[in-house]
């Protein structure tokens, strides 16, 4: 009996190991499908003979389904190998390491210039079709008012977005008056240094190492602008925002702008 039991355990162990092989094969294929690793990392011939060898041992339907899934994954890998070969033969292939190094070395302007030189935009007339108009109407008609939209998920909790005053920040110990003034002056000096009398990109200027720092710099810069020491200009075509130190008195076209800080 003991010998029979040992044999049965041995068979079970062997079956478990075979199942593990199949699961490992599925995982390998899955990893290759979802990364840019070469599909030739999988030896199709070897994996097929492995599946063929284990096939007679399967009795349970669940294991058979795993076996067929492994087979289907191998088919996908063969498809990827085909695409890989076609791409490699298409003259678009360049050593990725070389290209990565090159992209790191050249400037953003050079990259953009390379793109513009081989770009042929599509020419087309955009128009509103009756179908599109109907879709827009249905969307607008069925749109739930903002006040009702998130009631199910959030109820009536939460407070509305509002503004925070400097006094409140002081009372929360986020700033002291002196610290705030010195930070404003520091930021203004930095603006003077970086802009050197010409305009500089607003988003590049306020960008900090963390989102919190970016928000803080944008907040401080808003004060510098309000004090009249700097000015903002929005390019109407590209919507790019520029900041510069103020030279002379503000003209009649001066107005307040709201900027979303990402």
């Amino acid at each position, binding site marked *: 009996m003991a010998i029979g039991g040992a044999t049965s355990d041995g068979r079970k162990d062997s079956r478990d190991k075979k199942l593990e092989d199949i699961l490992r094969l599925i995982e390998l294929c899955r990893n290759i499908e979802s990364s840019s690793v070469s599909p030739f990392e999988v030896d199709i011939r070897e994996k097929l003979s492995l599946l063929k060898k284990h096939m007679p041992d399967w009795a349970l339907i669940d294991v058979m389904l795993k076996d067929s899934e492994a087979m289907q994954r191998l088919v996908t890998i063969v498809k990827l190998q085909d695409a890989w070969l076609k791409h490699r033969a298409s003259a*678009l292939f360049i050593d990725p390491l070389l290209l990565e190094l090159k992209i790191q070395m050249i400037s953003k302007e050079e990259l953009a210039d390379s793109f*513009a030189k081989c770009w042929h935009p599509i*020419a087309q007339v955009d128009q509103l079709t009756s179908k599109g108009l109907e879709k827009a109407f249905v969307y607008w008609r069925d749109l739930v008012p903002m006040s009702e939209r998130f009631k199910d998920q959030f109820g009536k909790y939460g407070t509305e977005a509002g503004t925070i005053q400097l006094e409140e920040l002081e009372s929360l110990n986020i700033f002291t008056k002196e610290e705030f003034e010195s930070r404003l002056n520091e930021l203004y000096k930095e603006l003077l240094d970086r802009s050197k009398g010409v305009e500089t990109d607003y988003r590049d200027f306020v960008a900090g190492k963390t989102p919190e720092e970016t928000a803080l710099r944008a907040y401080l810069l808003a004060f510098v602008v309000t004090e009249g020491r700097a000015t903002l200009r929005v390019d109407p075509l590209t919507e790019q925002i520029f900041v510069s130190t103020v030279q002379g008195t503000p003209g009649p076209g001066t107005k307040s702008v709201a900027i979303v800080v990402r």
Partner: protein
Amino acid sequence: MSTPEADRAQLERKTRKAFQVLVLQRGRNPGVKGWEMRRYLGKDYKKIVEVLSDDLKPLGLEVFQVPGPEGTDDSIRFLLRFREAPTLTEAETAGFRIDDLAVLAASIALINSKQGRISRKELETFLRNKFPRWRIDYAVERYVKRGYLDRDDKDMLRIGWRTRAEVDERSLMTLILAQGTQATSKL
């Protein structure tokens, strides 16, 4: 029996029709498939497209053919596009910032060097060495929406249909590789 004048008139009529078909957006994506062109213009639609492309030369436009996935004539997509590439300034006035164009150029080149597919995470990690994170997120999402990049359910990015239609990918790779060497050779 048709006269040469009648033939010419018919060709002109069909060329006009081809232009109208190509310039008006019908579906969600621009361009007209081969089978649609055959339906509008008859079986000689390819010749008519050639004539139209030639006629559009003075306007700086051309008819471009993007091969379909099946590789058949019916699946070819015909599009009207600029014959000459715009300048960087013109591209900027079309609403593309230099940084956005640079992200797209780097993405296309990298995807091509990685056998035409790359995971979004891998691309973003690479781009983060050169561009701020928020710009990458925004730009990649925008380019997927506009068809320059194609994303599958496994979050793998591939070259999109619009890139195939608008960008000379081979030239892009060559130009990027040549950028540094041009400066060096000038020295």
